[in-house]
C-alpha cells in the first residue's frame, strides 16, 4: 500500500484549500424523479423538503415523461441492459444506428456519431479533425469540455473575446497561413444564456475559409422555430460543419452525446476518436428512450413552444418584480446579484421558501458577476413560475435589492 502520509496530507490540504476558498461542492439528494416538483434532502440527514426545481437542464420536461419512461422499459425488455463492448467490437445495436440517423435528420446534418457524453464528444472532435498544421479559434467563454478537447489536440489554438466578431476576424486573418482553420463556439453560453451570432460566424468562416464547430448542448431540442438548435435560430442550418450536443439536457436528460456534421469528419471520428474507440457507448435503455424523445420533438413543437412561453413570462415577471436580469430569449435567466455572498444567501433563503436555485460566483463566472441562474422548463406550469417570482420578491425585499441595478447593488454589498 503506497497511500502514505504524504499523499493523504496533500489531498487533505487541497480539500481544506477548496473549503477555505468557498468552492466546496455538496450534493443535494433528490428523492423523486426529475421534474418541476421534487423532494430534496439537504443537508444529508435533514428533513425531506418539497421544492420547485428551477435549476435543471430539463428544458423540455422530458426527463420523466411517461412515454419516455415507457420506451425505456420497452428498451430494457427488448434490447437488454448492457452491451459489454465498445461499439466496433460487438457494442452496436441496430437502435444505436437508428438514433444516429434520427439525430442527423433532426439536426439537419449529414451524419452523427454517438458518445457516452457530450464531454466525450468534445474530447474527441478536435483531436481527430485537426493536426499541428491547423488552428482552432474559440470563443473565450466556451464550455470547459470544449477547452479540454482543444487542449487534447495538437493544433495551434487561440481565443477571441466573447462573441466579438471583429476580434474573431482579426484572429482568422492572423492564422491565414494555417492549413485548416476551425472556429469553435457554444451555441448558447451556459452562464449567461446568450446566443452566439452563428450567422455572422458563418459569414466570417466563409470569408476566411474556416470550419465552424458549435457545442449546442443548451439549445438542441428547443432553440429555433422547430427546436433544431442555435443554427436554426440563426438561420444557418446546413452551414455549421460540426455540432456536438448532449442527450443529457433537453433531449431526455439521461446521458449521452454526439458529434453531428460533415460525413467525412464524422466517419473519421468513428475510425479514430479515442472516447468512441475505448469506451462503451449509450446503454440500450437510453437509446430506446432517446428514440422516443426524437419522435416526440419531431412530431410537434408543443413542448418547445410552452418553454418559450414560460421563459417569456418568467423574464417579464421577474423584471417587473425589480430584479436585474441579463436580457435575452433563452430559458437560462441569470438574476444578477454581483456579490458572491449575496448570491449564496439569496439562494439559501429561496430554498427555505421552496425554490431550488443555485448561486454562481467566481471562478465559475467572472469576479463581480455573481448571480443566480434560473432555468425554465416546459414542465413548469404558470403556478410554479408565479410561486418562484413571489419567493424571489420576498427575498429581494429582505435584502433591499428590488429595483437596484449593478451600481447600486455593488455600492450596498460590494463585489
Amino acid at each position, binding site marked *: 500500500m503506497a497511500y502514505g502520509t504524504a499523499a493523504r496530507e496533500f489531498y487533505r490540504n487541497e480539500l481544506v484549500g477548496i473549503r477555505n476558498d468557498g468552492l466546496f461542492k455538496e450534493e443535494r439528494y433528490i428523492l423523486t424523479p426529475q421534474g418541476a416538483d421534487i423532494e430534496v434532502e439537504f443537508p444529508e440527514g435533514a428533513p425531506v423538503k418539497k421544492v420547485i426545481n428551477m435549476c435543471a437542464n430539463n428544458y423540455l420536461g422530458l426527463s420523466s415523461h411517461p412515454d419516455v419512461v415507457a420506451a425505456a422499459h420497452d428498451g430494457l425488455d427488448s434490447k437488454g441492459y448492457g452491451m459489454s463492448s465498445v461499439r466496433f467490437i460487438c457494442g452496436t445495436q441496430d437502435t444505436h444506428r437508428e438514433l444516429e440517423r434520427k439525430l442527423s435528420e433532426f439536426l439537419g446534418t449529414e451524419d452523427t456519431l454517438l458518445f457516452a457524453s457530450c464531454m466525450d464528444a468534445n474530447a474527441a472532435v478536435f483531436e481527430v479533425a485537426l493536426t499541428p498544421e491547423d488552428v482552432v479559434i474559440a470563443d*473565450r467563454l466556451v464550455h470547459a469540455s470544449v477547452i479540454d478537447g482543444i487542449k487534447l489536440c495538437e493544433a495551434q*489554438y*487561440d*481565443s477571441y473575446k*466573447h462573441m*466579438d466578431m471583429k476580434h474573431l476576424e482579426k484572429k482568422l486573418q492572423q492564422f491565414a497561413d494555417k492549413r485548416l482553420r476551425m472556429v469553435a463556439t457554444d451555441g448558447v453560453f451556459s452562464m449567461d444564456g446568450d446566443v452566439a451570432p452563428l450567422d455572422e460566424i458563418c459569414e466570417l468562416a466563409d470569408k476566411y475559409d474556416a470550419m465552424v464547430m458549435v457545442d449546442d448542448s443548451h439549445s438542441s431540442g428547443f432553440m429555433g422555430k422547430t427546436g433544431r438548435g442555435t443554427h436554426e435560430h440563426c438561420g444557418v442550418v446546413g452551414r455549421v460543419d460540426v455540432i456536438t450536443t448532449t442527450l443529457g439536457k433537453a433531449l431526455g436528460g439521461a446521458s449521452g452525446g454526439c458529434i453531428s456534421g460533415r460525413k467525412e469528419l464524422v466517419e473519421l471520428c468513428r475510425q479514430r476518436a479515442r472516447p468512441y474507440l475505448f469506451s462503451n457507448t449509450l446503454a440500450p435503455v437510453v437509446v430506446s428512450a432517446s428514440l422516443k424523445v426524437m419522435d416526440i420533438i419531431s412530431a410537434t413543437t408543443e413542448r418547445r413552444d410552452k418553454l418559450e412561453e414560460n421563459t417569456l413570462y418568467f423574464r417579464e415577471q421577474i423584471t417587473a418584480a425589480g430584479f436585474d436580469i441579463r436580457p435575452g430569449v433563452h430559458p437560462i435567466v441569470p438574476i444578477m446579484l454581483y456579490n458572491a455572498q449575496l448570491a449564496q444567501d439569496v439562494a439559501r433563503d429561496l430554498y427555505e421558501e421552496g425554490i431550488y436555485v443555485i448561486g454562481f460566483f*467566481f471562478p465559475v463566472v*467572472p*469576479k463581480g458577476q455573481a448571480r443566480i441562474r434560473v432555468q425554465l422548463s416546459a414542465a413548469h406550469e404558470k403556478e410554479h413560475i408565479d410561486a418562484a417570482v413571489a419567493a424571489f420578491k420576498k427575498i429581494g425585499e429582505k435584502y433591499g435589492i428590488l429595483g437596484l441595478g449593478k451600481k447600486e447593488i455593488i455600492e450596498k454589498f460590494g463585489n
Partner: protein
Amino acid sequence: MADELKDKIREYVVDEYVEEGDDVEVKDDTPLITGGLVDSFSMVSLKLFLETEYDIKIPDEKATAEAFDTVNAIAVLVREYADV
C-alpha cells in the same frame, strides 16, 4: 523612465483582454491571471504575441500563470530571451 517593452505588453493586454464596458485599469503590477482578467486558456495569445513580436521561443514550462501574472513579470520573462 519609460519602458517600451512594458508599454507594448500593456497595450497588447488591454487590446486583447479588456472587453467593452470592463472597468479595468491595467498597471504594471495589476494581477492579470489571479485577478481574473486573463485565464490560462486565453493566455496563449499573449505568449504567441511575445514570441512573434520579439522573435523568441518561450518554453511551455516557463509560460506559467505566475510568469504571466503581471506586466512586470512578463517583461522579466521576455528579457530572459530577448535583448530589449
